[in-house]
């Protein structure tokens, strides 16, 4: 009887006990991989890439590196300077360089560190044509349900013909501040003086643009949820207007683009300042790889990017010998001049 009980106990114990084991992962490939990430845009002359070492356990800083940039095989700049990268972890360094290029040019970025040489070669994609861009003021409810003014930009884009294209919509606001009136007591400034200028990126509300809006059957505007992540970087493809035109409807909050940057200190009783505003609509043409990369990033940083149950994303890479993405983008721009606006007296000044 005792043996039977013992046997039953052993069997029950076996059934009820599961076994947990660990398989240690040692990583694959070389212990250190040089990471180079950056966006190189045709509408800018100065560019930068972020560099660091990728290892099995952590990201390590690059202590010394040399960068060369070639456009169509010709070296256009080089640098060995490593700068602190703002808004990044300390291990990441920024390398800045100059290059001008146009659509169709081959841009090669080579980085060498501790005997490791990596390079990225890309051809700047053809830019679309922004046929026109109009703006109107519309009234709509904001996030709090209040009726507010919004600026609706209708941007008509002509697709690059004969190929699959990947775009990103951006809007910048450039402002210049001119004195348009001075009192008789004012002697230091005179009418027509440019006293300040500034530029900022505008946050695009894409809720009315189905090409950018990926939500189906939902009402909320911005919050990610289980079925949706916001296309906050406004990337899109030409799949719905291949080889033809499409008019994007981009909305900007009035406050977003009316707010001035004027840091000019003045007495509003003596000086009146006028803001000369221009909205620069940019359609960036990018590679499919960049499109996927940005899409991954948005998904990754949405509420859907919960990796406790599924694997993380394999971000695409185009850096040979290392890893990362050096994306070459070509910009099409269209300037929309807004009516001049005199800064009101009650606006903040540093007088």
């Amino acid at each position, binding site marked *: 009887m005792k043996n039977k009980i013992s046997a039953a106990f052993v069997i029950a114990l076996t059934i009820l006990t599961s076994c947990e084991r660990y*398989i240690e992962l040692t990583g694959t490939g070389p212990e250190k991989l040089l990471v180079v990430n950056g966006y190189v845009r045709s509408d800018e002359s100065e560019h930068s890439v972020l560099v660091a070492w990728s290892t099995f356990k952590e*990201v390590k800083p690059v202590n010394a590196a040399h960068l060369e940039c070639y456009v169509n095989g010709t070296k256009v700049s080089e640098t060995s300077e490593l700068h602190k990268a703002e808004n990044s972890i300390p291990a990441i360094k920024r390398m800045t360089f100059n290059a001008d290029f146009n659509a169709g040019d081959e841009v090669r970025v080579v980085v060498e560190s501790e005997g490791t040489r990596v390079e990225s070669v890309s051809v700047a994609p053809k830019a679309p044509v922004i046929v026109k861009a109009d703006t109107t003021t519309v009234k709509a409810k904001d996030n709090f349900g209040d009726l507010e003014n919004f600026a609706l930009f209708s941007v008509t884009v002509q697709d690059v013909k004969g190929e699959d294209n990947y775009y990103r919509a951006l809007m910048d606001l450039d402002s210049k501040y001119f004195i348009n009136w001075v009192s008789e007591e004012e002697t230091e400034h005179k009418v027509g003086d440019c006293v300040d200028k500034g530029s900022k990126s505008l946050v695009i509300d894409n809720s009315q643009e189905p090409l950018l809006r990926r939500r189906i059957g939902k009402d909320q505007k911005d919050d990610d949820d289980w079925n949706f992540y916001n296309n906050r970087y406004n990337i899109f493809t030409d799949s719905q207007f291949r080889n033809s035109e499409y008019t994007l409807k981009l909305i900007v909050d009035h406050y977003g683009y009316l707010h001035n940057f004027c840091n000019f200190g003045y007495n509003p009783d003596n000086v009146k300042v006028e803001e000369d505003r221009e909205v620069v609509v940019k359609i960036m043409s990018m590679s499919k790889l960049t499109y996927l990369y940005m899409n991954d990033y948005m998904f990754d940083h949405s509420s859907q990017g919960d990796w406790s149950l599924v694997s993380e994303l394999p971000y695409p890479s185009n850096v040979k010998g290392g890893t990362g993405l050096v994306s070459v983008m070509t910009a099409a721009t269209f300037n929309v001049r807004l009516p001049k606006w005199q800064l009101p007296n009650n606006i903040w000044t540093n007088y």
Partner: protein
Amino acid sequence: MPKKNKLTRFLKAGCNDSSPEFIYEWSLFGNSRAVNLKNEFMRKILLAALAAVLTVSAHGQNKKITISGYIHDDATGETLIGAGVVAAESSAIGAVTNDFGFYTLTIPAGKTTLSYSYVGCRTETVSFDLTRDTTINMSLKEADILDAATVVARKDAGIRSTYMGALEIPQEMIQNTPVIFGEADIIKTLQMMPGVQPGMEGFSGIYVRGGGVDENLMMLDGSPLYNVSHMLGLFSVFTPEAVKKVTFYKGSFPAKYGGRVSSIVDVRTNDGNAKGFHGSVTAGLLCDKLHFEGPLGSEKTTFSISGRGMHTFVFDKIIRACGSPANYAFYDVNAKVAHRFSDRDRLFLSFYHGRDYFRYKESDKGTATISSGDGSSYKEYSEDDIKANLKWGNMLAVMRWNHVFSNKLFANTSVSWNKYDMNIKSDIREMVKSEKEFYDNTYKYGYNSGIMDFGGRIDFDYTPAPQHLIRFGTEFIRHAYRPSVQRVREINEDGVKKTFTDEKTNISPNVYGSELSLYMEDDMTLGDHFSFNPGARLSLFFVDGKAYFSPEPRVALKYSFGEGWALKTAYSRMSQYVHLLTSGDISLPTDLWVPITKNIRPVTSDIVSLGAYFSGLKGWEFSLEGYWKRLNNVLEYKDGKMAFTSAANWEENVEMGEGRAYGAEFYVQKTTGKTTGTASYTLAWADRRFKDGTINNGNWFPFVYDRRHNVTLSLIQKLGKRVELSAVWTYMSGSRMTIPTRKSFVITPDGDGTNDYDYIESRNNYKLPPTHRLDFNFSFHKQKKRGERIWNFGIYNAYGALNPNFIMYDGSHSKKDPTTGEEIKTPALIKETFLIFYPSFSYTFKF
């Protein structure tokens, strides 16, 4: 009295004794009735008399006559599927019974000898001198030990079939394959076949030649079943006791099958014993089973009914009474009634119902003393109740009519209704009652999803000439998909008023699809060496206002030579109009079957196979098959997505791509003698690519079950008359999973660097360690006064191999540094194994 009536009385007089049964058609004598002859002596007399009568009117040898009829199991009266009839003159002249036990054979008129055979039965050889078309029904007796069946050229499955990768799964193999908890399981038996592999260790999913788990058509009596798993996939829904025949296709497919791209599992159930009331009762470690069958009134009408349920289902009330808040159970019921109107007409009604059930109920109530701010106190009574019920399962009803138009034309007409549904209901109640406060809030939640099919089909077997067996037919299925409907009701009562809030949400709208198919094929015998099977299936699927047309050519060629040698090659194209949205390894009730849409195109596969076969050694079969398979429009979740996110807008979360699989399979089977068994080895590759780039950046990557090597050895050994031992050893290369391999950073679209993140270079980049295990099963049979008693003892994973049943990534696993002794964090995989050395037993009494 007319001559034939005298003969009837004479024949009937000989029918009182025991088997074998031998049935002749009266049309030989100018009448269409058939009678049974059960006495060996009488049979010989009749044969002699018959031969004499027929000889008188015999025509020349050039005339062809057609023999048709049914082949039965002598003991039960069950029709035998795949039984062979072959003429002694040439093994090339032969026929096999179809899914309903019917055969047609055209042979030269005059003297002939026919051999009737079936695996596990004694071969019956009879001689005739025939002059005109006739019906001969044959009953075969069980053999003492497994003996080789007579070689039949025209088989639907098996090594001698023209089809490639077509296997008949013997009932004995199903019953004796050792499995977890000792529950015989068809799907787990299939996992032993070459080219077939399980998903997670111990579970019932099958992945065939690089295909997905939803690419296998599971048919019960000719109708598809959608969810064939119980208990998260540990068991399949097929109750072995109810099953008569299992045929499995993975390489070339008869044209009558369609709807899935990787394999067909055709399960046929018992019609019921026509000779007497029989049954079995089984009590196992996990389940209890009942099976009854027998005639209803006369031998013309039979029934078969089987039920299986977990102990927890049977004793749910006791479990409740014991205070357990939760219970899980499943059950299956198979029922079938068959009626034979005549040898020309038979009617079958079959029914299946299976359900998984989970409930949870917890209540927390009590009274508390609450202190008021003014120093006084009062009593507060509160009650929290949670009740949840989850049910899911299939229901299937099929009505089938077999009609023999002539000796050369057989028809099967069926209508079927099939439903799979999943329901979740939960009630959450919060109640507080005191002198200062009262509220009683109830939140009721309901969720259901499902799929319902209503269909009809008609299939014809036509034998215009000995060299041709033409099969043709049509099928129509109306699908109704209800991906998910959610209902919420809130009841709030505050002592003054009671408010109700109702909300119904169709998370995904219902979708209706119509599927129409036409098919035709000709199983041709070209001389003594060649058999050729060209065919085609044309299918149309209407959904979302769009029609998809899929032509599916099929062709198979076999060349036989030497003593039992054969070469075969085949090409098949298959189409699939439904997808299963699943998270993969385990079968969850939330897995969702969805149809193709105007955006999601049908999956198609092109499969090319080439093989060499040898069956010249008595009782042995050898095969070596190579295959190449291309899959189009396969679905995969986009990177970072999974089924849980997909109830709504599931199309947004998946991507269509292509797949390729290729490999070689070696299979040996010993079919006769006291020792039988199989050995198989599979060398395979399987990849996927999604050009759109949302998965693995558009590059090829290995399929999750891209297992390179797969070895299975199985053995069934009769140790005397009463004891049987079966053992299975399997070895598989590890499957794939996606894990980070290093730390890196990405750049935001604004141009800033991110924090450390786990870098993954590609999907399914890590190959898990191989798995292997040994399972045993012992059966002890003893004939008792009223039946047979069988004890089964099994051990699953006998040597306790630590194969992973669940595996996940842990990026910061703590361990001690071997040099410093300090605790460090390191990436690791957590491997959970819970199927280690699982003993099981069951007791069966058959009567």
